[in-house]
């Protein structure tokens, strides 16, 4: 009795009542509380990291979806653009963008004169850098497509220079401009004046999604078009190859193959392959597909093949798990009414395993979509400006990929590319979220439980 009184048990209850917490019970409850707390801390840390990542990316990258445009009338003088006077595009092609660039600066000077904008210290050389160098190329393409426009004045909508765009978005300020060798304070004052006069507009930047990459001098013109196409082509190749091969391999291994030493070895090696670093597949791809098979460099077909190798183990493992989850009673019933083994698999087991297979495939694809390392060695981490053709020829044309574009842009010197890179990450994340959502929906819709 002295023991029981020591732990403060009230009189009248039996010594072993569960309502009376013993020291041991208190310890266990405290342990449970602590464990819950650890779990909550872990979840909070995870959420905080995600929130931090998303805010930093969205904060930097959302502005990439907006672009400052300058709307000014540009004269297209016949004597410089079509010296022969025949309006023949073949002849006019000889006039390079270097002849178009001064037209843009002149047009800007005209507007400044017409609006009577006076900015102290504004040099004539400042006008050249105000509008993107891409503008000359835009004009040239327009003139070559519409030769009759030569000699007229065009109401052009031109990209503003990267630093001016940055100023409109708040990335560049008067203070940084004073130190910056690529933009002057006068240029920013000019931007203010032009905005007031209604020549400077900010609109949604479709070009960021559709345009090809641009060189280091034109961050304002850089877009994701080629990268999105390249990633899309690679995903097609991966889907077309990895899904049938993966499903066929797992059906055979799971349903038909005898269980012996050999299949055990295969099984272990598939699991091992899933854990191989992705760069290894790049080395393999370079050796087999480019050096041995002679496939072209920087092409989505090679990227797709390499990513297929990488995705296969994921798909096989997911498919086998899905097949295993189908209860044996289904197979037994089918066999019992006289179906062949193959009929039982294809008529009953496979349809029931489909949601799991699809989920596994989509998750494998999403993984492949975000992969950069294996592409490094097969020449896809590159500056590519030409859109690949439509498939199937397009599979062999050079292309880039979404994660590659992020990587490339983070290495560029101009700080304006930080915004572009973050914008590209947002696009990549949107694709990944979409794919994963599809996987979740498919699983919810089609899944059956026993």
């Amino acid at each position, binding site marked *: 009795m002295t023991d029981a009184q020591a732990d403060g048990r009230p009189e009248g209850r039996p010594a072993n009542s569960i309502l009376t917490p013993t020291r041991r019970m208190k310890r266990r409850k405290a342990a449970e509380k602590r464990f819950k707390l650890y779990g909550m801390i872990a979840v909070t840390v995870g959420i905080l990291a995600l929130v931090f990542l998303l805010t930093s990316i969205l904060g930097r990258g959302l502005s990439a979806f907006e672009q400052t445009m300058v709307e000014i009338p540009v004269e297209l003088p016949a004597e410089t653009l079509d010296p022969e006077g025949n309006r023949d595009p073949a002849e006019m*092609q000889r006039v390079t*963008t*270097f002849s178009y660039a001064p037209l843009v600066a002149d047009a800007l000077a005209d507007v400044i004169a017409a609006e009577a904008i006076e900015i102290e210290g504004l040099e004539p050389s400042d006008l050249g850098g105000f509008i993107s160098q891409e503008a000359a190329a835009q004009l040239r393409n327009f003139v070559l497509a519409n030769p009759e426009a030569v000699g007229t004045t065009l109401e052009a909508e031109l990209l503003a220079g990267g630093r001016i765009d940055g100023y409109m978005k708040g990335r560049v300020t008067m203070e940084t401009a004073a130190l910056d060798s690529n933009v002057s304070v006068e240029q920013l004052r000019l931007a203010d004046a032009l905005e007031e006069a209604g020549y400077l507009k900010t609109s949604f930047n479709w070009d960021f999604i559709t345009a090809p990459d641009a060189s*280091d001098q034109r961050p304002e013109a850089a877009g994701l078009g080629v990268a999105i196409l390249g990633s899309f082509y690679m995903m097609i190749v991966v889907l077309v190859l990895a899904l*049938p091969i993966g499903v066929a391999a797992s059906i055979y291994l799971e349903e038909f193959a005898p269980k012996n030493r050999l299949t055990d070895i295969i099984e272990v090696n598939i699991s091992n392959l899933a854990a191989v670093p992705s760069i290894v597949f790049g080395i393999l791809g370079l050796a087999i597909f480019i050096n041995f098979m002679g496939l*072209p460099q920087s092409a989505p077909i090679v990227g797709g093949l390499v990513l297929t190798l990488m995705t296969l183990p994921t798909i096989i493992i997911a498919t086998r798990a899905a097949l295993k989850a189908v209860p044996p009673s289904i197979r037994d019933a089918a066999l019992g009414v006289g179906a062949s083994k193959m009929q039982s698999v294809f008529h009953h087991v496979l349809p029931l395993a489909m949601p799991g297979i699809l989920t596994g495939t989509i998750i494998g694809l999403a993984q492949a979509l975000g992969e950069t390392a294996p592409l490094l060695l097969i020449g896809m981490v590159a*500056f590519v400006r030409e859109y690949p053709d439509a498939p199937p020829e397009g599979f062999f044309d050079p292309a880039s990929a979404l994660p590659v574009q992020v990587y490339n842009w983070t290495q560029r010197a101009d700080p304006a590319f930080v915004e572009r890179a973050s914008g590209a990450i947002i696009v990549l994340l949107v694709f990944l979220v979409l794919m994963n959502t599809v996987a979740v929906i498919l699983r919810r819709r089609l899944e059956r439980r026993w």
Partner: protein
Amino acid sequence: MSFGKLSASTLAIAAVSATAAVAQSRENVQIAGSSTVLPYANIVAEAFGENFDYPTPVVESGGSSAGLRRFCEGIGENTIDIANASRAIRPSEQEACAEAGVTDIIEVRIGYDGIVFASDINGPDFAFTPAQWYNALAEQVIRDGELVDNPVANWSEVDASLPDQEILALIPGTNHGTREVFEENVILAGCEESGAYEQLVELNGGDEDMAEAQCMTVRTDEAVVEIQGDYTETLNRLQADPNAIGVFGLAFYEQNTNALKVATMSGVTPSTETIASGEYPVSRPLYFYIKGAHIPVIPGLKDFARFFVSDPIAGPNGPLAQYGLVSDPELAQVQQTVEKEDSMEMPN
């Protein structure tokens, strides 16, 4: 869909891809190499694609050595046509090239790149000499006639004229062509300038190679961080630690003048003008190498090379100079080389 059909269709796809690959010939110029030359190559490729009927060349980065290694893999459409390099090709690389059948190499010098030393914009001003860099970064220095591990930890210990700031140098890793220039034009020059070289030769009993190697060995303690990545990584490190002094290309500095403060070297401020005139001591030529055997095969290869070194592009008023390239005073000669397709001589 049966297993048989599945495997048949897979085989068919594989077969189609293989034949299509063989039937197709490459239409674009393929370039790889130095990350220093990359922005210039990008700019030219873009302008080339805009102004010519040829597709825009594909430019990869990866470093001078990796680019030249791929260049020397052999001849054929699945090898690159042009290697960018921030240093001249080495005789050993030329031999490797020749072994793989790449004998016809045209060397094109596109201009000069300055190497600048920059610190955080809010930090103190620095005015360096090569000798100070040698004294700060050498692994072993001579003290009282004996080689000892470099003891200095602060710039003011190196020279009283320098600010009181901890030594933390962000220098390019050995995978960069820039490292070689840094070692030869700054560290070795500083070693000779400070008189340490002669003392080292004396210490080594007249062995000049040994003395040179000792001059150029950079300390590996916490005072030096080797950057394997690009200048953007150097910039990020520098912003994280304002004590750091980074080694950058002039073009990179020009794009980030609002974040970096450039140091003078022997009293000269780096700029395209001072580098062109030779006043600023740390600069190096940039090259690209063309596979002669590919010129008749790859459409647009020669036009691209010609366009790259043409006056409106590589001249002093062209877009490359605007981006930070010091244009080659002997550009006309380079243009001749490209025009005549003059190959390099093989090393003996």
